[in-house]
């Protein structure tokens, strides 16, 4: 057997070639569109492109102007308020609903469908309906007033101070169903024995949820967080449909700033600068997470 010459290691590039070929669309999309597109955006954010991208570099001018713009500041503030509240509320409401659904209730399917159906509707539709319901003349305020409570005021969409909460109501209506679904799946995934152990230990239900079950659902919370967060950064349609950023610019959001500056103000450079800031924020939040979640550990 010693006479056998060792076979040569074949070229690694050609191993599992089919798999690599089949992954080409993914690679192209990841590199060409998402990475390439982002880089392109970043590069052009340093130019003074107007209607068409033009490689005339102007340094950080666009960024200086961006951060001097009160509209951008308002946008960022709005996104922060909307983002944090919508994260908290959709998690809390989604979890509460899921916990209620998990009590072996009757009509579970009906309730679940009711909570989930708004997810099938687009933000445009969502915005429209809630604009209608929150309309002070026809909507809730009008109804309450017509019932005799004349001083009742509930016009979130027309009050600059609270308009973002009006949008939040609609956003939660659309999105909590999915969160509930995810949470329910997570709850169902928890070992029955944990519940039994807690009952034998005499731990009340709410404590079991709070101190045992919720900490155990970390992966579900993370998945949910990513899904909600990715939606929040992109929030645009909802605002446009509900308020168009108004009243005034009280409900402006970064995505709308980007869009308006790119296409309406015809100042691509400014739009790109704003998107670069958004990208940067996303990257700061996401890259460490993605690294932990997908980069670090290997599958056994």
């Amino acid at each position, binding site marked *: 057997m010693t006479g056998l010459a060792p076979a040569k290691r074949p070229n*690694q590039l050609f191993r*599992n070639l*089919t798999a690599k070929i*089949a*992954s080409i669309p*993914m690679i192209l*999309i*990841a590199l*060409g*569109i*998402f*990475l390439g*597109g982002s880089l*392109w*955006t970043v590069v052009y954010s340093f130019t003074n492109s107007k209607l068409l991208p033009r490689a005339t570099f102007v340094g950080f001018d666009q960024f200086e102007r961006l951060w001097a713009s009160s509209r951008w500041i308002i946008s960022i503030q709005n996104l922060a308020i909307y983002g944090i509240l919508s994260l908290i509320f959709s998690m809390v409401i989604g979890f509460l609903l899921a916990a*209620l659904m998990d009590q072996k*209730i009757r009509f579970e399917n009906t309730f679940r*469908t*009711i*909570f*989930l*159906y708004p*997810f*099938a509707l*687009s933000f*445009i*539709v969502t915005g*429209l*309906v809630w604009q*209608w*319901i929150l309309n002070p003349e*026809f*909507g809730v305020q*009008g*109804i309450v007033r017509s019932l005799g409570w004349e001083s009742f005021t509930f016009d979130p969409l027309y009050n600059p101070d609270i308009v973002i909460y009006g949008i939040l109501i609609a956003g939660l*209506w659309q999105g909590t*169903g999915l969160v509930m*679904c*995810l949470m329910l*799946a*997570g709850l169902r*995934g928890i070992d029955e024995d944990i519940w039994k152990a807690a009952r034998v230990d005499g731990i009340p239900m709410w404590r079991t949820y709070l101190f045992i079950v919720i900490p155990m659902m970390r*992966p579900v919370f993370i998945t949910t967080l990513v899904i909600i967060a990715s939606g929040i*950064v*992109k929030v*645009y349609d909802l605002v446009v449909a509900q308020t168009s950023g108004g009243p005034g610019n009280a409900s402006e959001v*970064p995505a709308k700033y*980007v869009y308006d500056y790119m296409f309406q103000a015809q100042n*691509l450079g400014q739009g*790109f600068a704003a*998107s670069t800031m*958004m*990208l940067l924020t*996303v990257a700061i939040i*996401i*890259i460490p997470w*993605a690294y932990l979640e*997908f*980069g670090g550990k290997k*599958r056994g």
Partner: protein
Amino acid sequence: MANISTLNTTAAGFDAVSDQVASGPRGRKPRRVVSGRNIMLYGTLFVAALYYLLPLYVMVVTSLKGMPEVRMGNIFAPPMEITFEPWVKAWAEACTGLNCDGLSRGFWNSVRILIPSVVVSIAVASVSGYSLANWRFKGSELFFSILIIGAFIPYQVMIYPVVIALRELGVYGTLTGLVIVHTIFGMPILTLLFRNYFASLPVELFKAARIDGAGFWQIYFRIMLPMALPIFVVAMILQVTGIWNDFLFGVVFTRPDVYPMTVQLNNIVNSVQGVKEYNVNMAATLLTGAVPLIVYFLSGRLFVRGIAAGAVKG
């Protein structure tokens, strides 16, 4: 049985001692149907359900009212006089610019866009997810991470680069181009779902198939696909609703003769002629949302199961 008799003797001795106790609680603990817990539980669920149903109710009710009633009455009141006029108008008569054929024009366009886009985007994403789960190669995780980060990029940011890319490919403005766009933007979340799902299947199946001599495609089509129904349902629902509801890509990347229904919806809703015709708007909205809503109502249960399989693990 022999043992039972011995058992009974011991039990009999015991019975004598505690006959009075034996008449105590027995069987299932009686429960009042209207307990405090149940009131809380169903009460909360009911209130929540109201909140979720209210907009749908408003939409339906409003769409069945005539314009005068809409202007006068309150939005929650049921229609005094049911009229299907708004529905007819929304479907067949509402105008956008010069075209006065309502939503009907966009419906088939939407179908024409929907089917290839859903099929292609799911096909590409499922193959990528399968490849990521079972055929790792150098860098595959990196590409995947980029994709996931891509899920966070606002679409608006990508419009320019995508326009340029499609122009260079020469498919801008064609249905092919639109299908590519939907595939691109559906990619991150779908790939994540498929990858997690395929990774949750036992690796041994994959190994067994390789030993049986099946290659990349054979394993995909003959082993993996038949097992992936739940996740395909989820992907399908996500894509059907996403693509059907899409406005931006439909309008930016196509020409008017294939504008989807949502463009018509936007036109009807935004072409204000005097007073907003809320009833027509609501009817149009319901008509446009009908397809995804039906898909949801029909496959909600599968959706939940698939979500559990694809999203929670990994």
